[in-house]
Structures are given as C-alpha cells and as structure tokens.
C-alpha cells in the first residue's frame, strides 16, 4: 500500500518536473558568456586551456571554495573518526602478493611524476590541480594496498595541505594589495602563450591545488584505513 502510494506520488512529481523542464530550450545556442570565454580566454588569462581559464581565472573564487569543501570534509572526517576511539594499526590484514609489492616500487614514483605533470601543465593541456591531486592520492592508495603496515607521515600531510591552502589565500590577498586591487587578480606577467611559465598566477594556484588535493585525499584514505577493525 505504502509502496503504491509512493510510486504514484513519484510518478506525479516526475511528470511535473519533466513538463516544467520542457520549457528549457534543448540544444539552444551557447550562452553569451560561454561565447565570450571561448573568444577571449587566451588573451585575458594567457592560458591555452579554456576550461582552466574559467576554473582558475574568471571563477577562481569558486575554486577556492571547492578546495575548502574538500578540506573541511577531510578535516571533519578526521575529527569524527580519529576521536571515535578506533584502534590504530591494521593487524590481521593479509600481506599483499609479490606482484603488487614489487610493482609498487616501480609505479609509485612514476604515478607521482604523472600527477605532478598533470597539475603543472593544467593551463596548457587537459587536466589540472584536482585531477593531478587525485592521481597523486592514488599512488598513496597503492602503497597502502601493497604494504599494509605502512602509514603516511601525518604531519607531512598536514603541513602540505595547510601550506598549499595558505598559498591560495595569500595569492588572493596579494592580488588585493598589488596592481588592480582585486582579490585573486592575476598580478604576475602572463608570459608567452603555450609555454610552461605563462598565464601568471594560474599555474601557481594549480600547483597548490594539486598538492593540497593529493595530501587531503591521501589523508582521507589513511583515516578510513584506521577503522578496518
């Protein structure tokens, strides 16, 4: 009975939402702002990757907020799990196979290098800080899988995530005090298009985001590993 009523309600709501959304022109031409970004992003920001120019240029403040969302989620998880009285250490976990532990020795530095490549080249090629950071965290996940006894250096992770977060805020404040006096204004020279040292503050911010996301996700993995008992 309850299920039937629920299904009927759901159907009514679904049809209503569907009819309302029909009013949105589907496949209509792009928005004016989108056109502006595609036309002018290279000149405005000096980044050849238009997505990056929006994420770290025009809407960089959103990105600061998103980095903070991840930071607060990782911190909250740490606060709830670390004090929950869980036993540290992971006894009784089966040791990894030889292939995994031997492969890890080769792969770990390569994955880190790949992650670093992605976030340092975020203004030139697809990818950026978030993607590079996730790749770096996957390297640490591999370490956990291959050698169950190993732990990340927690103070190192805290140091990295706090310093990189502060770098982001400090760049914003420098923009507020230097040059055009706008928070997160691009106060560094834009350089030549398509070179590594171009686009002003964008690669600096992406490096900070890459390190921050990498250390935060690695910290989340570490926190969740503690509770395997």
């Amino acid at each position: 009975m309850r299920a039937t009523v629920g299904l009927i309600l759901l159907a009514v709501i679904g049809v209503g939402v569907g009819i309302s959304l029909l009013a949105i022109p589907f496949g209509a031409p792009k928005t004016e702002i989108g056109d502006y970004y595609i036309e002018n992003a290279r000149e405005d920001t000096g980044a050849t990757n238009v997505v990056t120019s929006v994420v770290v240029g025009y809407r960089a403040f959103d990105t600061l907020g998103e980095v903070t969302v991840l930071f607060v989620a990782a911190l909250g998880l740490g606060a709830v799990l670390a004090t929950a009285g869980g036993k540290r250490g992971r006894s009784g976990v089966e040791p990894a196979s030889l292939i995994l532990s031997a492969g890890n020795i080769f792969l770990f530095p390569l994955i880190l290098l790949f992650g670093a490549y992605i976030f340092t080249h975020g203004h030139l090629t697809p990818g950026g800080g978030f993607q590079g950071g996730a790749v770096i965290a996957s390297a640490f996940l591999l370490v956990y899988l291959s050698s169950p006894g190993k732990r990340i250096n927690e103070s190192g992770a805290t140091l990295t995530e706090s310093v990189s977060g502060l770098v982001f805020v400090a760049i914003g404040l420098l923009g507020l005090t230097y040059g055009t006096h706008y928070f997160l204004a691009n106060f560094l020279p834009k350089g030549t298009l398509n070179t590594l040292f171009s686009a002003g503050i964008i690669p600096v911010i992406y490096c900070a985001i890459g390190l921050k996301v990498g250390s935060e996700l690695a910290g989340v993995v570490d926190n969740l590993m503690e509770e395997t008992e």
Partner: protein
Amino acid sequence: MNPVPLYVAIPLGAAFLIPLLGMWWKKSGETLAVLSTLVLAVMAILAIGTPAMVHHMGGWTAPLGIALVSDGLTVLLLIAVNVIAFLCIIFSLKYMKVYTGLTKYYSLFMLMVAGMNGVVVSGDLFNLFVFLEVASIASYALVAFGVEADELEAGFKYMILGSVASVMILFAVGTVYAVTGTLNMADASREIATRFGGAEMNPALLLAAAFFLMGFGLKAALVPFHAWLPDAHPSAPAPISAMLSGVVIKSLGVYAMCRVMFHVFGFGTASPSSAIIANAMIGFSVLSIVVGGLLAIGQWDFKRLLAYSSIGQIGYVTLGIGVGARVLATGGTRSLAALAILGGLFHLINHAAFKSLLFLSSGAIQQATGTRDMKMLSGLRKRMPITAATTNLAALSISGVPPFSGFWSKLIIIVATIRAGLMGVAVVAIAMAFVTLAYYVKVQREILFGPVRGPAESAKEVSPLMYVPMIILAIVCVGFGLLYPVLGSRILEPARDALLNGAEYVKLVLG
C-alpha cells in the same frame, strides 16, 4: 581597498593556519580563532552605514566573473554572524576544555564562519552554493564532534537531510543557469524580468523557485523540512548549538531564500507566480510556528526545548518576509510590505541574540550541574545567579514580554499581518506567542526558581570566560528593545530597503 573579500579570506586563512601552527603550538586554535573573529566582528560593526559596494573577484566584471556584494541586508547578517561567532569562541575557551582535538574544532569553526560569510557576501548563484556547502559540511562535523552514539546519529541525520537540500539547491541553480544562461544573480534577475516578463513565469523557473524554497527551507528548518533540527541542535557542543540556532539556519536558510527570491525571481513586482511562492512561504511559516511551539511545551530536555523553539521562532521571521512578499505580489501598498519585512528582519536579529544566549546558558548549566534534564534541575537562581539572570532576560525577550526586543519584532509582524488582511494567520501568530510564553515560564519555574535540590546543590557559577559573553548578549537583548530608534534607522531600514529594491541591486552589480 575594498574590504568585502576579507570576510571570507580572514576566516579561511585562519582555518588553514590553525592545523599548521597546531603542530608546534598547542594554543594556536584558541589564539587565532579569538583574533580572527574579533577582527571580523569589528569589521562588521564598522560596516554599519557604509554605502553598498560590489567587488569583482579577480577584476572580471559581473557576468563574466564572480561579484561579491555588500548591501544593507549583507551588513545585517554579517553583524549577526561575526559578533555571535566571536562570543561563542570566547565561551568555547573554557567550555571546550573537556574535549579532545581542539585544533580541529577551532579550524572547523572558522570554516563554518568562512562559509556563512561567503554565502552572505556572494552575488553569484553557484558561488553561494559552494560556500553553503563549506558551512554545511563544517556544521555536520561539529554536531558529531562529541562522537557519542547519539551525537554521531544526529550528525549523520543532519548530513543526509542537509545533502538532500544541497542537491535541490544545486538542481535549482542549474535550472536557472539553463534558462537564463548566467549565474550572476543580478544578471539572471534582469534576464528573468526582460525575457520572461516576470508576470507569466516560465514553468522551469517556477520549478527552480520551488526547489530553492524546499532546499533553503530545509536549511532553515521550516516545517515540514525540520526533522533534523531537534536532534542536531541539542547534540552539538553548546557554543555550536548557539551558532547553529543563532546564525546558521538564518544565513544559510532565511537569508539565502530572501536573496534568491527577491533578487533573482523578482518578488518585488506584482505577479501571480510570485503570489504562489509567497503563499507557500506563509504556509510553511504558520506550520513552523504551530508545530515548533506545540512540540516545545512537552520537552523536558532543556536543549531540545530550545531547538523546538527555534523552529517556531524562525517561522515568525519567514512569516514577516512572506507577508511582505505577498503584499507586493498582489499589488498592495509598498509601505505595508516594508513594515512586514522590517518585522521579519528585526525578529531575525533578535532571535540570533536571544537564542544563542539561551543555548550558551544551557551549556553553562549543563557544565555546572552535569545534566540538562529539567526534571532534575531546580533553584539554580540561588547557585548560579549570573547564568540565571541572563537566562531569565533571554526567556522574557523571546516570549515577547514588553519592553524586551522580542515583543517589538513580534508586534510589528502581527500588525503587518493584520493590515495585510490575513486575520486567521494573525490569530495563530498571537496565540502561539502566548504558547511561547508558556514554555519559557515552564523553563523559569522548573530550573531557575524553586528549592535548591539534586544536582543544583553542588553547582557553582561558571567561569567569567563563559558568563561574560552571556552578559554581553543579555545587554544586546535589552538594548535592541529599548534602542530601537537608533538600531532601526541604521541597520534594519537599510536591510529592508536592500531587499525591496531589486532594481537597485541590479544597477549596483552590473553598473
């Protein structure tokens, strides 16, 4: 230099710095949190009377980049958030000593403040959503900070329902973006007004408005979206309960709802679709006033009683604003709408003061006696004279006894409701004001007066670090009632005018 970005940058910087310095310096959390919230509170108070300003982040002008806007409404909320945050931090210095992981606590607290300030100053729909998430996730973690079973359960429940609200809000933001092609609120409102004429609103926009109403309604804990609040607010540590009931439900719920409804969907103009939304808002408000008030009477857990009372009181705030919107939507007089909205905003700031005071008092009582069960407490007036006096003042104020602040704000709301022709609603609002008085009389009789017995016998007055913030808030409760002429023209009227003049907001942001 434009100070608006600093409201976000300062707490964010403090939140990142606290765990870093905490590695070597145990007191980093306390010190940085006190310093940064003090600076923020002073900045917010100094912002009174400054002209409205807009800051284009990164120098990208409005529809291209993100604009931060500071107008009268923003200043009102900034004062409430930052002053109460400072007082709650001072209270935490002593109160939180019994907990572990304090660097995490202060860092999460600063992130919650950064998120609320971000929501309040943002002029961009997606940016508002991002900071709403920052503040929400920080508050989920803070509710569960005690990590006892019931606290974790309350935090989990809050997180699930809060995430549902966030999804609704994100969906609505996406719909507005799909229809108007812009995320900037002023630009979107101009598109809606010119392309859709306001009067015959596009069905997709109406759907977005409904989703905004539900999403922000859940963040504000309006009935029927209130189920998380009676668990979440009592479970949190007292200073966090004070922040949650005092300012979080207002900045993330009521403020965001008002800003989006008035400055994106154009509540200020007469149209049938605005009338639908305004009526829905009044309906939710009446339900909240009735349900919150009636459920509060039966509570014997002091903090749970306060939590139910928050639901009822937030209903008065949205009733004032909803009546104002209805008057505008049905082509009524502007001065009547202005009166109703003024009442709502006045009750918003009053409730921020007395409800955070009541929650801080509940924390002081719990720490002194070890219980918050009202059946076990009695005669605290003799053992804890200062806490009892501040609790009394707050209770008188919230139950609308003249000349305290709560009386004036409820009076304005009820008068405006009657003049708007909503007699039935006004009768309910008046009746429930007496119910509020009834359950606060119960609080006074049960725990403050009577013979000293049980846990009260060994109770002592709490440390000055805890009672000084309470005294300051008690002075505010009395002051708001007596100094209305000063307060009204300098803080409340600019906020009301900012809400009413949507066209001016568009001009301010887009130039």
